[in-house]
């Protein structure tokens, strides 16, 4: 077994209580981070679902030839921003309205609704500017009477999304810093517990890199173990929320793996800072 790994593992054997305390502390700080991540993920999920409902509806002037409408719908469907463009005839529009109004369907008895081209945009083209751009192009067809896309609603959705994004990054960075400080402190305790050993290592000619390596590996191992524990706690918390409060989504495997990598990185950084500071001082 390589010396670095052996020395890192020996620490767990020699001071199991301190190691367990470090891992649990890291787990709790990452758990807070995980809960925040879960909230952010679910907000994003809700916003994504709302965003999927962004739609442009172009109303066609009465008397327009069905062939012209079909050709226009085909043209619109080929726009790079467009995911789907569907022609809705007058009859289909009426049937939809009656379906959507349910018990008040009688109000449409004998009514005529205009035909329309309903356009759904691809992800990444659902922002206000892209929607406005596509709407303007569709408006250029001579037989289009009006184009509606809920401009205010889209602006608000995007403002909310931006606020959520900025708040997410700010809170995420704060949680990451707090986690790193906590991890750094726990590693610092391990460093101080081995201060004598470090001093002797230096006296016999160990380089700082040689001294630092086992601590860095120890930080990574603690970060990963703390991350696994935090993931487990977050999973249990989410199961409880699903049972007693609301249905939420959980991290997929890739995000969970990224979380563990993040824990490892925090462990590494916390160790690097603590050991570096100690080596500079002694």
């Amino acid at each position, binding site marked *: 077994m390589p*010396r670095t790994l052996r020395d890192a593992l020996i620490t767990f054997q*020699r001071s199991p209580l301190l190691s367990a305390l470090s891992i649990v502390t890291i787990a709790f700080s990452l758990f807070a981070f995980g809960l925040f991540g879960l909230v952010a993920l679910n907000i994003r999920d809700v916003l994504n679902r709302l965003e999927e409902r962004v739609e442009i509806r172009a109303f066609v002037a009465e008397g327009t030839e069905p062939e012209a409408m079909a050709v226009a719908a085909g043209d619109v469907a080929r726009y790079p921003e467009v995911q789907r463009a569907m022609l809705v005839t007058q009859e289909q529009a009426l049937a939809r309205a009656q379906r959507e109004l349910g018990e008040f369907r009688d109000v449409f008895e004998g009514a005529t609704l205009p035909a329309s081209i309903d356009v759904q945009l691809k992800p990444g083209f659902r922002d206000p500017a892209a929607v406005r751009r596509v709407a303007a192009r569709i408006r250029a067809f001579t037989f289009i009477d009006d184009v509606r896309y809920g401009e205010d609603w889209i602006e608000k959705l995007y403002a909310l999304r931006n606020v959520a994004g900025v708040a997410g990054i700010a809170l995420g960075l704060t949680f990451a810093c707090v986690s790193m400080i906590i991890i750094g402190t726990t590693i610092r305790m391990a460093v101080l517990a081995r201060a*004598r*050993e470090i*001093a*002797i*290592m*230096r*006296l*016999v*000619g*160990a*380089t*700082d890199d*040689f001294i630092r390596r086992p601590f860095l590996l120890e930080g990574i191992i603690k970060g990963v173990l703390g991350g696994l524990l935090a993931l487990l706690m977050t999973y249990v918390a989410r199961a409880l929320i699903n049972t007693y409060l609301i249905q939420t989504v959980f991290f997929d495997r890739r995000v969970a793996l990224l979380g563990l990598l993040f824990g490892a990185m925090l462990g590494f950084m916390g160790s690097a800072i603590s050991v570096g500071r100690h080596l500079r001082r002694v």
Partner: protein
Amino acid sequence: MIRFSHVTKTYPRTGTAVDDVSLHVARGEFVFFTGPSGAGKTTLLKMVYLDERPTTGEVRVSGTSSRIARGRDVATLRRKLGIVFQDFRLLENRTAEQNVAFALEVTGASPSAIPSKVARVLAEVGLAGKGTAYPPELSGGEQQRVAIARALVNDPFVLIADEPTGNLDERATRGIFQLLREINAGGTAVLMATHNLELIRRQEFRTVEMDRGAVVFDSAEGSNGPAAKAP
């Protein structure tokens, strides 16, 4: 091999610890450093292994200058030195063998070569058969022998011993001193700081006496410094 050129060491709070010391230690020499507590012996020895740097002047140890040595140079230098302290500085949760092997591991020695080298050096210091003992299970003299074995395992050209017998009874002191003599006879220079005047008087080795940071007597030169000039 080791040269102090007008070395002064001053601490901001406690003042001058070493005052304008110039001396040279030749390869294979045995030198006692003596003098009262606070005379500057330990500071002088610390400057040999660059644990302290001179405030002014220069220490050169086997080509390494205190003026320009950086972290890696210091580590490289220390691998060529052996250092022994009054308080042994052993790792109590490691066996005698592991304490000695530790000094080899940090130099990146081949793991397969370590056990035989450790066994050889433990036998040299008279601890064959005690390799698996932990420091608290050994006497003071034996612990100091482990520390000496650790200092010797990298075949140093100089052994620095700061009050190595300070915590030992007379019998153990004689044993440790005899061991240092044997090490010196093998060609390794020994720099030994001690209060034990009895030990010094019985030997014919070079003696450097210090007082308040200055060298007041150097047997290699006959006299040196203000004390020698005093009536």
